[in-house]
């Protein structure tokens, strides 16, 4: 009986709280400490805006990926969210232009703002990259030292890196020379470096071209001859994501192509077990490009308090807060002003700081094609189909050409369905 009263009392007091303030819900997921840091920073926001209460709901990534789109489609969902499928959710974003200093946003986030827009005519401000990521490679420097081989230079090609990694693995008894995350996004950069254009001249997707095939042929070949860690791609079905970070931490792979978000984890997990370095993306005939990407803070149209939502977003966009957010979550800044000044990353180790600065330097090398690919609303479709079909080619369920044909058909169907 008593628990009833306590429950009722809690209900009443939470209802009062809701009356006292504008309540906003921020649906957040985290790989490391992203939501925790955001929550900590929001305390300052609450002090400055006592009438607004932002509650951070830390959910599984699965909820962001699978539930959020259905919730939004049904006219439900949170006021703010941390999302990765920027294009796919574009029609639900709130345009905060009327509430913020648009010039400041354009100035500092200009490069990534188009990722949130639904088309070239769209000039709205919908979100902010709170975690800008760049794909690229980590190497185990200690293994290179033990094999007495120098690191290939910044202009080295994919073939040169593969050759070097194989030699080092052989000399040191390391099981895997190279590994790439199981993700269509990750192999996008290498394909673009090989000359893939991703889109036809009219802007419609045309993923499978000579450049794309050139890299995929190499990639599937490396899987077969043991240059690439086959486990990473083969241990999963469908389009599921799989990384090889544990293998790298455990010094079982010489060259690991992943991205800047791994830095914080490696810094902590590797400690001083071995020396590691960020070497960016290898070169191909067309570029030496990785893929940009990351997670963004967006607000949704359906919110009852658009002004408060814009206030929260503007709070995170302001230079001192944004700098803290990026530093404490150990990311590369998407904010131009901060990027120009450089960040000190005070709580990073020397290796971590060096790596983060190396990532920041990689941003300049990203090909415009990669930006366009990341900004394309249906890019998730293309990433997922790439993973599914290329894996089928690796395990031999489909011949390589067959797999490429099915990949094209998958994308064509999705594009056709999206037009309906």
């Amino acid at each position, binding site marked *: 009986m008593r628990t009833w009263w306590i429950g009722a009392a809690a209900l009443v007091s939470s209802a009062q709280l809701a009356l006292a303030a504008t309540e906003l819900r921020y649906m957040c997921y985290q*790989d490391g400490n992203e939501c925790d840091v955001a929550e900590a920073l929001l305390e300052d926001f609450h002090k400055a805006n006592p009438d607004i209460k932002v509650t951070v709901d830390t959910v*599984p990534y699965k*909820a962001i990926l*699978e539930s959020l789109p259905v*919730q939004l489609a*049904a006219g439900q969902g949170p006021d703010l969210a941390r999302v990765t499928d920027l294009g796919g959710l574009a029609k639900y974003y709130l345009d905060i232009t009327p509430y913020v200093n648009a010039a400041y946003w354009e100035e500092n986030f200009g490069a990534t703002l188009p990722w949130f827009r639904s088309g070239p005519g769209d000039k709205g401000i919908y979100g902010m990259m709170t975690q800008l990521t760049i794909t690229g490679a980590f190497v185990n420097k200690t293994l290179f030292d033990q094999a007495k081989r120098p690191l290939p230079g910044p202009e080295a090609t994919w073939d040169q890196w593969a050759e070097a990694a194989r030699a080092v693995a052989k000399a040191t008894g390391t099981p895997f020379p190279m590994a790439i995350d199981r993700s269509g996004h990750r192999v996008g950069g290498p394909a673009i470096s090989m000359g893939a254009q991703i889109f036809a001249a009219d802007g419609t997707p045309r993923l499978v071209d000579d450049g794309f095939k050139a890299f995929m042929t190499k990639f599937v070949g490396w899987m077969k001859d043991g240059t690439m860690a086959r486990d990473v791609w083969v241990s999963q079905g469908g389009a599921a994501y799989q990384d090889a*970070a544990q293998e790298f931490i*455990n010094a079982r792979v010489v060259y690991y192509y992943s991205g800047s978000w791994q830095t914080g*984890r490696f810094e902590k997990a590797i400690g*001083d077990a071995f020396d590691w370095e960020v070497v960016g993306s290898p070169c191909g005939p067309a570029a030496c490009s990785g893929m940009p990407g990351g997670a963004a803070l967006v607000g949704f149209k359906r919110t009852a308090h658009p002004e408060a939502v814009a206030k929260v977003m503007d709070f995170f966009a302001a230079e001192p807060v944004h700098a803290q957010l990026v530093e404490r979550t150990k990311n590369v800044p998407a904010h131009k002003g901060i990027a120009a000044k450089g960040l000190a990353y005070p709580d990073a180790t020397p290796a971590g700081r060096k790596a983060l600065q190396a990532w920041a330097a990689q941003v300049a090398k990203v090909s415009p094609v990669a930006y366009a690919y990341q900004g394309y609303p249906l890019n998730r479709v293309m990433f997922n189909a790439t993973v599914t079909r290329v894996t089928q080619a690796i395990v031999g369920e489909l011949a390589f050409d067959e797999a490429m044909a099915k990949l094209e058909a998958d994308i064509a169907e999705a594009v056709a369905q999206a037009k309906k």
Partner: protein
Amino acid sequence: MASLATSGVLDLVTRTRGKGRLHWTDWLAYGYLLLGLFLMFGPVVWVVLSSFKSEAQLLEFPPTALPYGQVSVAVPGYPEPLPLFRVRMPDGSLREVAQIRRIGIQAQMVDPAAPETILRVDIAGREPVRALSLATENYTALFERFDFLRYLWNSVFITVTATLIMLLVNSMAAFALAKYDFRGRDLVFVLTIATLLIPPTVVLVPVFLVVAKLGLLDTPWGVIWPGAATPTGVFLLRQYMLTIPDELIDAARMDNASEWKIYWRIVLPLAAPALAVLAIFAVMWRWNDFLLPLIVLSRSEQFTLQLALNSFKGEMHTQWGNLLAMTVLTLLPITLVFGFLQRYITTGIATTGIK
């Protein structure tokens, strides 16, 4: 010889009564059961043991049975305790020394007994000194991150409420289907059973839309109602109620008892064993539920334990340490309940399952 063996094996699976002393087929039976014990419990025990290992130790191959951690020692002149290694010295002797730092492929070591001299050692020639230690941080990290009691309460509330509603609703329907003769009865029964053919996963999106339209999103009721009527429950209870003699019910009617009174005064108590079995399954289903709560509940104060534990899975990382601890925490309540009620549960299912 071979025929003797086969007849022995046959004997093993055909005999129904022992004869007081242990026949060799009894030994074989025990052998089979012990193998079963190992296969059924072994994996779970292994996971529990592993969940107490540190992230580094989880990566070791071959794995050790018990969790170990590296020993650290305090060395004068160094503020932090240093990790201890066993090192083969150039003269061939083995020594236990502490590592100060590692530079490239060399490590700087120091003997705790003689902290003045710094030794340089190839990192390939050192081996950590270890002792038994529980990596409880796998668990404490889980507890620090969230309000465990609140999520436990949410889970318990949903499980208990949903189970009670299911028992009531399903038993009423089962009573009607078992003890009344009315037109359309068989159709209702077939339609109920037919829903078994639809896996719940494939109607997830429509169910979500219905829940959203009813305004049940972000409330425990959005998880409770969709699972409140189950074909399995109706089927199980109906089959059991068929065995209740009609005479009892007719006698009650003679005494002018209302149909409702007959239901809850006579039928419900008599169906108690079947209700208990269904209750166990209902508790299990609700407790283990993941996909429906995932799409229905998105506010952290409403999360169930399963959701909260899964919020550890980010986009890029899964760490075995936390994952294993989470696994153990999820299976623990069910295991405890089963441990106490084991005999009751298994005999209950065995006697009500099929009549």
